[in-house]
């Protein structure tokens, strides 16, 4: 692109605005506008409702940021949902014995551990991440069920509950602060730090990355640890908001997270990542969910409409990507 000051031609502008990476924003605005019109008598278009959406979506957003790391290196991590439950349960149990900082540390450690195990198994055995994480997902869920005795483990610590759940800071829900913080960290790591550059290199062309001296195995393991760690953070946020931990937490989130990340413009096959896209994508999923519930549709109609919106989004996105 020439950087001369002469004005861009119309087609240049069109080409810029139609870049596939912007597509998610249009989709988001479109869905938002659609619901705002359709639900104008319901309080949908209100700050309180948007805060609801952000609060409900916070764990999804952070998982989406985490999954972006795994996808960057060309791995998928199916175990994130189970890590959410594990981390929440570990945190809730530890809270019965130790203070908040140690409980949080323990929960995060459980996430890191799972990431390391996933990473080592995938890289040592050279087996697809899909299969390994499918396996660890089962193992972790089993452990969570066992440890919790299938019961909900309540959290009564007020600090934990406000810090990671329903508290406010400067009039803004802490969950929004957490979401924005991790989104920012994810963005900076991916776009400004050498680590993110290497993740993308490994995902974009592993042979080339190795030839340039990158230790691809280590980088992939680190990516999986980041992914698991984010899932563990999401687990803590769930635990804080629900004031308890249960082995079913996160169970239903995997597909939502994958959809959010993919709609946001991240390649499911590695090398191309959009953190902002993942955040907006997760909010879009939350927005659709919230709007559909408010619409008064039956559960069946909600499922059908959600499916239609998603397919439309992906179809338009795929077209734009091809045209670009």
């Amino acid at each position, binding site marked *: 692109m020439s950087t001369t000051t002469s004005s861009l031609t119309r087609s240049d502008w069109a080409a810029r605005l139609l870049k596939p990476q912007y597509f998610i924003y249009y989709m988001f605005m479109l869905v938002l506008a659609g619901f705002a019109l359709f639900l104008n008598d319901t309080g949908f278009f209100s700050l309180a409702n948007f805060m609801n959406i952000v609060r409900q979506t916070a764990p999804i957003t952070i998982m989406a940021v985490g999954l972006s790391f795994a996808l960057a290196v060309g791995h998928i991590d199916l175990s994130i949902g189970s890590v959410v439950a594990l981390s929440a349960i570990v945190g809730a149990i530890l809270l019965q014995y130790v203070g908040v900082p140690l409980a949080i540390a323990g929960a995060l450690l459980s996430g890191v551990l799972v990431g390391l195990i996933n990473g080592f198994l995938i890289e040592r055995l050279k087996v697809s991440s899909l299969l390994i994480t499918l396996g660890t997902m089962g193992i972790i869920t089993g452990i969570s069920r066992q440890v919790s005795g299938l019961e909900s483990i309540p959290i009564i610590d007020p600090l934990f509950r406000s810090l990671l759940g329903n508290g406010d800071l400067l009039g803004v829900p802490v969950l929004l602060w957490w979401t924005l913080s991790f989104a920012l960290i994810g963005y900076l790591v991916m776009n400004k*730090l050498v680590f993110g550059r290497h993740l993308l290199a490994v995902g974009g*062309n592993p*042979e080339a*990355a190795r030839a340039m001296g990158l230790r691809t195995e280590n980088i992939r393991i680190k990516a999986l640890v980041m992914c698991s760690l984010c899932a563990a953070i999401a687990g803590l946020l769930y635990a804080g908001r629900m004031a308890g931990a249960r082995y079913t937490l996160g169970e239903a989130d995997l597909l939502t997270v994958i959809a959010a990340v993919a709609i946001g413009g991240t390649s499911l096959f590695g090398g191309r990542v959009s953190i902002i896209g993942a955040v907006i994508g997760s909010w879009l999923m939350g927005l659709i969910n919230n709007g559909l519930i408010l619409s008064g549709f039956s559960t069946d109609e909600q499922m059908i409409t959600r499916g239609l919106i998603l397919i439309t989004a992906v179809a338009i996105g795929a077209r734009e990507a091809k045209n670009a």
Partner: protein
Amino acid sequence: MLRNELSQTILEVKEITKRFGGVEALRGVSFKVNKGEVVGLLGDNGAGKSTLVRCISGIHPPDEGEILIAGKAVKLDSPMDARKAGIETVFQDLAIIPEFDVVQNLYLNREILSTNPVLRWLGWLDAKAMAKRSQKSLNRLSSRIPSLSEKIVNLSGGQRQAVAIARAVSWGAEIVIMDEPTAALGVEQSAQVNELIKLISSQGVAVLLISHNMQHIMETCDRAVVLYQGRSSADVAIRDVDKNALVSLITGASGSLLAESA
């Protein structure tokens, strides 16, 4: 030697042997490359060219024999070792990241970090500095790459080759190994790459060129080393031979012509 008496040997390969299981891919290969010299490495498929390149670029360390850089024996256990020793390899598949732009590829794994100590500790990239220096190194090669922020996928084959070569020489490599650099290119772009090879060799960089294309070998190389069934079977000055002679050396039709005798 074939060039002049003052030539300095930059790379010397001595009696290299490499086995894969029971198969001996290389059985005692030896040759030398001088500073600023362009040496063609020839041989039929399976003669051991690729294995030899991989040994020199640190991907497969040899089982026996040694590699000397400027007279000193070096141990090349990884591509990083080779790079530190001043050997850069431009692979057939170029080893570039298609989704990255030119600068990002040039600086892959050698990124310039911010000068701010805190940011540096975090691994913060200094994108401006990298762009500036990339421009310089590409200028040095008078390249025709349209924009440094262009993604590699949007470049032509010749432009990609130029990026890969620029990456090699911009790191101060003394020896650049090129594996079939023109194989996938059209006539005009091949000519550009040949110019580039001549340019860098005139700047003192030794080039080891692997090619099937006799025409390019004849046009660009000073000397040719021929591998035959895992051995170095000939080492000849290009001005002393013609295409047909090279072909018969490659196919093993004419006997050994080793440089030691020259």
